[in-house]
Structures are given as C-alpha cells and as structure tokens.
C-alpha cells in the first residue's frame, strides 16, 4: 500500500485515489499544432526514478494532487494541490 500525504486529509491509502499519470504533461492550446498535441497525448518520459504524478483523491476530498514519487523505490516525498490558485490561496 502506498500512503499518500493528502494536504487536506492527511496520510491516506492509495486505494482512495485514482492514478492519473505524469503531472509534467502540459496540454497545449486547442489550436496548437498537431505535433504539440501528439506529444502531449502520446509521449511520456516514463522515468525510472523521480516522477511527478497526478493522483485524484476520488474517495476523499476529491482534490487533484501532484505527488512526488520514486518509480523504483515507491518512496513518496511530497504531495501538493494540483490547482495552483487554490494552493496559493491556502498558503
């Protein structure tokens, strides 16, 4: 079991969350080039080691979090709100 330190709910089992993949992917503007969309939709770094990833606390506070986790050791070193304005407002 991974334990994810949700900023609202505290450390929770990962089974309360839905995994949403690489958090470094930035979706381009709707009218961006095909190439930009191809990269965002299909290409991934897929690192063996440090990984920023999105977890949705679907069975908790329902926030989207960005979790820093190592894909080799599974060690989690941080979790923050994905929505930046809310994260700023809560500081």
């Amino acid at each position, binding site marked *: 079991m991974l334990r994810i330190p949700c900023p609202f709910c505290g450390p929770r089992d990962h089974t309360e969350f839905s995994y949403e993949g690489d958090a470094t992917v930035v979706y381009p503007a709707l009218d961006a080039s095909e190439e930009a969309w191809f*990269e965002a939709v299909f290409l991934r770094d897929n690192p063996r080691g440090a*990984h920023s990833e999105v977890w949705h606390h679907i069975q908790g506070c329902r926030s989207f979090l960005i979790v820093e986790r190592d894909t080799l050791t599974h060690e989690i070193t941080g979790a923050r709100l994905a929505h930046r304005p809310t994260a700023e407002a809560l500081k």
Partner: protein
Amino acid sequence: MQRYSALAVLWGGLTGQTHWKPVWGRPEPKGHYDVIIVGGGGHGLATAYYLAKEHGITNVAVIEKGWLGGGNAGRNTTIIRSNYMIEGNTEFYEHSLKLWENLSQELNFNVMFSQRAHVSLVFSAAERDATARRYNLMRLNGIDGEFWDPAELRRRIPHLNYDQGRFEIFGAYVQPRAGTARHDAVNWGYARAATALGIDIIQNCEVTGFIRRAGALIGVETRRDGVAGEIYADKIGLAVAGHTSVLAHKAGLGKLPLETHKLQAYVSEPIKPIVDQVIVFGGVGHFYISQSDKGGMVFGGDLDSYNSYAQKGNLPVYQNVMAACMQILPCLGRVKLLRQWAGVMDMSMDGSPFITKTDIPGLYLNAGWCYGGFKATPGSGHTFAHTIARDEPHWANARLTLERYREGRLIDESGHGPVPKLH
C-alpha cells in the same frame, strides 16, 4: 547440437545419464557483432534465433543484464491466444500462434505448448453481443472462435460458480487453439537453438549506454559482472520490455508512447486436475486462471495501476484478485497460495506493440508488449529478425509501427484510449 529424443533418454538411462552437455556457455563478448540484441527475455532470444535460422546472420550477441529469462519471460502466466479483432493485431498474433503450433519440433525442445482452449466468460446480454462481434470478426479473419452456451459450459467446466445471482454466467466465447506453454522451456529452447547456430548469449551484462558515430549507433557500452566495456555492432535491436524508455532516452530516441507498469501473478500449491482450459473473467472484474502441468493454479488480474519499475506487487490488487477468484471459482477457497510476484511491463498508449526500425540509423525497436507479450514471443522474434535483417517489416508487423500514434491509426482493442493503465 546434441539432439533430444526418446532414444537419447533411454540411452542415458543405460549409461548413468552422464552424456548430457551444457547447452549454452559463458562466451567472452567479441569486439564486434553484426547484430546486438539487448535483452535476453523471450523476444530477444527468439530474435537472435530467427536472425540465424532465417537470415543466416549468426554473428549475433544477446546481451542480458541479469540472467536469461529472469524478466517477464520467466514471470508471466503463459497464456497464448490470438483472439484479436483489429488489423495489425489479427495477422500478427495469428502468425505467432501458428509458429507456436510447431515450436517444440522447430526447437527440438518440448515447450509444453498445450492448446487447451481459452474461455472468456460473459456475464450479460450486452457483453455477449459485444464479444460475438469480436469472435465473428476473428472468424472472418480465419482465426478460430466459438460460443459455448451455459449448458455446454457447465458440462465442460463443472466447477464454476453457476448458482449465484450476482454475476449470472451467460456463456463463454472460446478460442480452441489457444492455451498455455511452459515459459522457462520457451526461453531455454530458444537459447539452446540460438547457441547451436553460433549466437553468443552474454548474461550479467547491462547495456549502460550507446556508442555513436555521425548520428548512427555503432555499439553499446556495457557493465559485465561489474566491469565496464564496449561492444560494437552494425545493428542494435532493443527487446528490453519494461525498460524500453530507459534505454530509448540513452539512445537519443527521446520520449516514447509508453509507461512502465507492473503486473502480479500468483501460483497455488499443486492440486489434482480441476481446470482444463484457460478461464477468463473479464468485464466487471479481471481474472484469468489455468492449471500448470505440475498442478499449481496459475492466475492473475489487473495491473497495480501506477508507473513502477519495482518488481513487487501491492496488497490491494492481491486482495482484488483473490476476491475475483472466490467469485468465479469458490471451490479454490481453501487452496493455499504458494508464491506471488510481479514483473514490469512496457504499457503502450493503445495497448498494442511496435516492432520497427527507428529514425536513428542502426537502432531497431521491439516494445509495447503490455501484459500480452508472452504469446507474441515466436512472432515477435520472427518479425523483428526480419525487420533487422532486411531493413523493412515482415507482412505480419507492417502495421505495428511507431508512426501510427502520430497518424491516428491506433490499434486499440479495448477502446480505452491513450491511458496505459487501462489496457
């Protein structure tokens, strides 16, 4: 190569079994090979074998960082089938299945391929109709498939959980030519046959980087038994399953349409024969089970669902798999589990693989096998060898390109879209 036969066993019985010789050695790497295959799993070994056998290219090394077959090739649940419906997959997996049908003879090694049928249970009228479409498409493509109604299913597999209201069994779609094989035997069979054709299998040798000249790859940097080295080659093929992205970055290919995920498998203590097919419980849950020749129940379920390079599975998935098992085969409730393990796989963005030349001269790629690449072993090796030897794809892998993602020609059997954890 010392041929295996009933007579050889008999002779061995009379002479104290002292005549058996090792079937592969510990060759010192040469300075240069025509082709280097990185990854000594099933696909890498098969590729080397077919390079020698079909294309006469014998100056080949298979470079494996651990031990032969210690990756997914030795960790999978050994299900072999070709019940695919989308072009690209249909012809490739059927080609592979046909190679399986003659593999023991081809390799002179009993890979224990057992065409015991693959039985996909259906649990609703809608699932029955959707699966009927798949099996009709298969039949149009010349792939065998049939429907077993509940009465026939009950006659053939009496132990399923028929008398319950939660998941009523509406019947099953069956591929009779599908089945299982012994994974270690497949690896050993290819390794032995490849060695006999002059191929070097170099174990405990990790590829740590690539050597390039004028934009082309001309060799690999290695660490063998802890010592750094260099080996040159005209062509380099990657068949490293879950580690494809790691090496693709080093080779300069950059990002690929892959995420590495792990899948668990389980085996029980041996019991008397109880399940004579591969049984799959899909749709509402995900569970597949067969019985090994030793009697162990071999089964698995879903991915752990997050990127991982750790060959260890988590407990919640373990629990889900056991719950699915109890739902479908409650008679196994008191059977003890012997072992559980996990392997890391290259989950692709459409759930289908790619076997292709790359834009980097000298580099060839074989990846994206998700958790269905064991059945692909002969087909993958056969078509990858062709692609490397001839610099163009075999007809069976012509659609398994990398460009298809850019061109929108996805081969998405499950229709889940670009979400690797769902394929």
